[in-house]
């Protein structure tokens, strides 16, 4: 009961924190509006026109399918990258030989521009969702790999030995020692990879015509319709913000409980009037 209340209060506290973010974004909107006033609609449509255009496109049933398509492409590639990068990274962290074998390849893959992968994927898979997902997989897997390798390599051997001498069950060892440690390395890599996967997806879609938000952007570009283009950008940004603040940030907070200050510290003594 008490714990549930504390959790509800923390959730409320987190949501209230959204006001600060909203303030920052609204200031950016003010800057956008000023840019519109200075350069006109063709260069930068006004925020309100953009929202109206997004609204119209949504009413016409164009936006939601595109968002779903993009999400499917992005998440498909990202999940494959997580599995592949996680397993290979874990191996590289655990075994020195695997690290010598895989590290240079990961470095090489990281160095190839995403746009080059789009071109190759288009040649290999044609203009389909598979080409998009493949591009996402190949660009994000090295990032996940690096995080997983680092996490596995820095696992504390003495902790494992201590757990063994105290006869800690293997499941407990994995849940309470290995997993939290791995996650503290893996999670930032996953968050970066996820954020990157949306951007790569939209880019690949734009070039491949495989549908989704990128395709919408391509059409807007052909029609020289800046308002529609901005509306699609707004859709991507909305998607990114939703993923960041509704999914990643709560997980991040949950994982980083140990980083939070202990109660009793940080009391402010200054003040008086």
């Amino acid at each position, binding site marked *: 009961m008490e714990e549930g209340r504390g959790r509800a209060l923390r959730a409320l506290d987190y949501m*209230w924190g959204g006001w600060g973010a909203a303030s*920052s974004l609204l200031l950016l909107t*003010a800057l956008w*509006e000023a840019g519109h*006033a200075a350069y006109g609609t063709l260069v930068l449509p006004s925020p309100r026109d953009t929202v109206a255009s997004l609204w119209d496109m949504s009413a016409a049933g164009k936006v939601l399918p595109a968002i779903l398509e993009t999400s499917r492409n992005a998440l498909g590639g990202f999940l494959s990258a997580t599995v592949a990068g996680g397993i290979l990274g874990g191996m590289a962290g655990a075994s020195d030989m695997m690290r010598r074998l895989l590290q240079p390849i990961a470095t090489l893959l990281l160095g190839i521009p995403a746009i080059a992968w789009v071109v190759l994927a288009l040649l290999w898979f044609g203009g389909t969702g598979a080409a998009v997902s493949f591009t996402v997989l190949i660009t994000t897997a090295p990032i996940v790999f690096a995080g997983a390798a680092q996490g596995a390599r820095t696992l504390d051997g003495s902790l494992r030995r201590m757990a063994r001498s105290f006869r800690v069950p293997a499941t407990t060892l994995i849940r309470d020692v290995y997993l939290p440690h791995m996650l503290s390395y893996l999670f930032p890599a996953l968050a970066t990879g996820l954020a990157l996967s949306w951007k790569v997806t939209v880019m690949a879609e734009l070039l491949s015509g495989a549908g989704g938000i990128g395709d919408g952007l391509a059409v807007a570009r052909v029609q020289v319709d800046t308002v529609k283009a901005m509306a699609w950008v707004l859709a991507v940004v909305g998607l990114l913000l939703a993923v960041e603040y509704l999914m990643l940030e709560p997980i991040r907070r949950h994982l980083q409980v140990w980083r939070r200050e202990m109660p009793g510290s*940080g009391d*402010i003594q200054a003040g*008086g*009037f």
Partner: protein
Amino acid sequence: MTLWAYGFRPFFLILPVGAIAAVLPLPVLWLGLGGSGGGMPAGLWHGHEQVFGFLSAALAGFLLTALPSWTNTRPVTGTPLKALVALWLAGRLGFWLDGALPSWLVAGLDAMFLPALLATTLPALLGAERKPWELPAALALLAGANAAFHLGRLGLIDLPPERLLYAGLDLFLMMIAIASGRILPVTLRSALTETGAAVMVRLAPGRRHLASVTLGLLAIAELIQPHGPVTGWIALAAACAQADRMTEMHIGRSMLRPQVLLFHLAHAWMVVGLGGVGLAVLGAPLDVTAMRHALGLGAAAFTVLAVMSIVTLRHTGRAFPLPGATWVAPALVGLAAALRVGVPHLAPQAMATWGVTVPAVLWAAAFLFWGWRFARWLTAPRADGQPG
């Protein structure tokens, strides 16, 4: 004499007079009982008297009391204090005689007070070890805004005077946002102590700075383009930044103590007013003047009453808890603000009675009550026998 022993005493004592005087002509005009006395339009007159009359007196009382205690310097007392009060009264007199006196004379009478206030606070500031420069800087801007108001009215600069009222009110809100950083630790701490909770106050300076900066930006935007969309977005950003700060006052049951809840409600008014101004400017069907009243009549007056009550008690040697009477004036002003903001939207045909006259009466009642209840402490020596 006790009255001139500390800055808050005379200013808080005459402040109710200024507050009531600033609304007196409105019911008369709206009910059609009399015409404007000539001079400037009634709305402009009322706005100026509220912002540069009423709020300025509150600011003077606060600064003359708070700055010496922050900087550990000697307060302004005696003759200089009397001179300041006289300058403030001269400005009010000028505005009451506006129309009868030439505009340049009204300007001259009114424009002296804020620079004089700045000049009297500067020596203490310069001599201090830790300089709380933000408030005097804002005061300088405010003095400039008032001067520009008169120059605009005299036609010497090409700036509509009402914009200086908007910017002036924004500057006041900004000062409130800045000063809250000093006030809240004290009030939160005392509220937690009173309810027996663990006394721990954590305020993020970043929140305060964001809240102040957005209000400063709004002042600039309203000066340049009060009804442009950029201003609207900045107002919305400022509203969110104030809402963000309210989380610092979410301290469980202790939040219900007057020294916390009054500030919380004031912040809520600020959010409503800034959000309303922003939405109205961006084209929502809202009355922008009503929304400015949520800021002036709601946020600013609420804060002024809370701060005046706390300062009066603390600096006359009376500690927390605040007496129950503290609630009366804010309650009346809150009701007045709700009517002034709500009636234009819900029942515009009843504006003269319910939107102007009744709020004006409630406003006057609030300040009469406050004056009656607190005057005894403002004029009597400190309860603990210390000087000041």
